């Protein structure tokens, strides 16, 4: 069957088997291998992507079900070559080791901050509780998400308190995130 959807802002239209899982469509057919496959039973969360902005486990979504919808993967997090603050937070706070669970963690963390820009440690732990990391022991992931939260808040504060030209503002934010 033919299926069309938007993946990371790009329209795609592909011939697929009706039973195909979204994780395999993304990885094998579109070559977006940042999304991983770890368990088949929706327990590990290495396959988390967004479907219309909501995190889903792509190992338990049929490709056909994503037809007509918007999908975003880890490859679609950075904007114009600039890392999302969540990605930067993971780098700064050692939020990853082997990196296998990381794409799923990043997608969940970004979605959390989009609805709750200032989550507590408990809220972060709850948000990522459907995902498993065998390397980090989670504390550094929690710190990474807090880093992103704090730096986004600071960037927003700077933007409102010191009205400057848009370009200067953006440069300042970029500096903030990379510092």
């Amino acid at each position: 069957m033919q299926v069309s959807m938007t993946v990371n802002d790009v329209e795609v239209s592909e011939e697929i088997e009706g039973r195909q899982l979204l994780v395999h469509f993304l990885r094998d057919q579109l070559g977006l291998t940042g999304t991983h496959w770890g368990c088949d039973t929706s327990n590990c969360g290495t396959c988390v992507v967004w479907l219309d902005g909501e995190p889903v486990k792509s190992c338990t979504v049929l490709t056909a079900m994503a037809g007509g919808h918007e999908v975003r993967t880890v490859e679609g997090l950075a904007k114009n070559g600039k890392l999302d603050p969540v990605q930067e937070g993971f780098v700064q706070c050692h939020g990853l080791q082997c990196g296998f669970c990381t794409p799923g963690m990043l997608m969940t963390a970004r979605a959390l901050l989009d609805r709750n820009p200032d989550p507590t440690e408990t809220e972060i732990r709850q948000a990522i509780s459907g995902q498993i990391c065998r390397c980090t022991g989670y504390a550094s992931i929690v710190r990474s998400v807090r880093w992103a939260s704090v730096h986004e808040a600071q960037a927003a504060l700077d933007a409102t308190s010191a009205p400057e030209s848009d370009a200067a503002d953006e440069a300042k934010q970029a500096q903030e995130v990379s510092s």
Partner: protein
Amino acid sequence: MTTVQDAGRLTTFEDNDQKPIGHGRMLRKEDPRLVRGRGRFTDDIKLPGMLHLAILRSPFAHAKIISIDTSAAAALPKVKAVVTGADLAAQGLAWMPTLSNDVQAVLATDKVRFQGQEVAFVVAEDRYTARDALELIDVEYEVLDVVIDVRQALAPDAPVIRDDLDGKTNNHCFDWETGDKDATEAVFAAADVVVSQDIVYPRVHPAPMETCGAVADYDAVEGKLKLWSTTQAPHAHRTLYAIVAGLPEHKIQVISPDLGGGFGNKVPIYPGYVCAIVASIVTGKPVKWMEDRSENLISTGFARDYIMRGEIAATRDGKILAIRTDVLADHGAFNGTAAPVKYPAGFFGVFTGSYDIEAAYCSMTAVYTNKAPGGVAYACSFRITEAVYLVERIVDCLAAELGMDPAELRLKNFIKPEQFPYTTKTGWVYDSGDYEPTMRLAMDMAGYADLRKEQAEKRTRGELMGIGIAFFTEAVGAGPRKDMDILGLGMADGCELRVHPTGKAVVRLSVQSQGQGHETTFAQIVAEEIGIPPADIDVVHGDTDNTPFGLGTYGSRSTPVSGAAAALVARKVRDKARLIASAMLEVSVADLEWQKGSFQVKGDPGKSVTIQDIAMRAHGAGDLPDGVEGGLEAQICYNPSNLTYPHGAYICVVDIDPGTAQVKVRRFIAVDDCGTRINPMIIEGQVHGGLTDGVGMALMEMIAFDEDGNCLGASLMDYLIPTALEVPDWETGFTVTPSPHHPIGAKGVGESATVGSPPAIVNAVVDALAPFGVRHADMPLTPSRVWDAMRGAPQPPI
């Protein structure tokens, strides 16, 4: 530190973004690709024309194969090959050696010996079709009686599992002993106090987030096999493929790309790798095999499965005199243990722990059962997890018997700093240690005295709070090669360093990261020695065509062995640079002094040359000193003179809900001493991960079997792994006792926390349950098992 104003409150983060030229906190070089989803894991590899392989596995734990009909599967469109054990037997490939010199079936020929054993494989154009075809293979089995209860494995009427071995009439695998039996007996006989306890360390599984798999690409014209595979030991694997498959070693390239965790699970050679190689040779196409999670859990390297009886003898005032243990080890259907040849029980011999005692003895019997093969995996440092669990549990039992505080008992019995190097009663030579400050620091961080007060108050109200202590000494960094080899391959590691003309460098390692951050740590080790910034040093690993030979990453051996190699190869390059510098500065070598990154004339700081200047001179026009060849590079193979012995003190605080028996780990304090610290951020990360493993093993994880041999932990719905909700925010600290024999004083740390945390957690739970008269309860301490313990009936899990 970075301090940020955050909606009216101040938040501080440790400032990781430092750029040390050498040791120190530094962000990882691996991360930019991994956070973008641009890591390259085995399953990410897609080659033109690549086929997919799927494996048919036995539904039974023990059954004779009567017949296999593959015709329907072979007839399915898009199926390219269906291969059975009989097909492999015709090529002499049905069996392969294990890492413990046993043999294991690649595909079963005569009978299956555990549930999940490989029976046949299909190669098809896509992974879905390959799976479909498995359903069409018709295998007729004759089900046999099973050996699942390890205590019955040696019963006279037990069915014989390994009838493939000539003359085998029972399920005995091996016997092993260490220490002095008679001397220990004498000490026990004369002791004031003797405490004994049966202790089970159940079967668990490392379950890395990336399962095992491979892509095999055999080029028939060149006769060259290229194999991408999830291996922690690419060089050892290549040599074994050469020996097993008869392919010339120079025609095999093993590439271990990014690995999604390993924890020992990716040390053995699995039948799937061999199947993928065979499939590529048979079809002439690249072939990918990736197991699914169930396959990973039911068929690949498990860990532990030791049934132990621990005994401890002491004086009435708490001087520990002797430790004795008797172990029944379940090795599954094939002895697939990854351990040095002379150490069938790994390094279990360190069960005397951190204590200065008079005598020790261990006897062990290992048996075959109808369970998956393996035995050493899951960050265990070759069975030190079991040894440390035994000694730290039995010491707590002794403390309870004596009515002594467990911290005080440990402090009283530690090996003293002046006793190092210390030879244990089982012959291990601990290189260095200073235990009391480590213990005191952990107690200070925990607020130990206050915790005991809080506990006493809570007990008066019927609240269940426990404080558990564990103190461990590890033995990591195998070899030396004279004592330690795997299938005849000495446990040494090579390293090559090449400085380019412009002063940038490439260092090539024989070990392979599974997330430990080698690309960062090893660049820092070299940078410290030679003064080239880590950013300018490329680290190449995980590719046998492009790295020197070595045994790989497991048993926390990368820093102790390969890290030493990296430091020494850099010093070798520096020695050559010194000769060139003396010519450039026109002074004698003796007049030069090394300032990290440059040689300067003693007493004349204005006269100096940088390592970058020297690199250009080494490759440039003009004469070099007599006897100095051009270029600036070196290679070495490092053979460690001894293991390194890191130690640590762990304190765990738990609360148990008396209504549900749910254990909550409230706090966990971990003080580690791994000698010289190269990148503290990475060390902390390694410790955090191991502590989480410990929570999993102590409270949640177990690979169980029913009486027919069905694996009850075959998915992540059944085999429970901690999420962010089950673990606390870790509190870590450190002391530094350098290794005297390691070039930079470093010891391994990767497995310390996995080794040290389970006893701390179990000791805490047992401490919480003391009001119920509980002295011991076995892992995993799930609510139902804790509930039983609270009612005076803690049962072993197996």
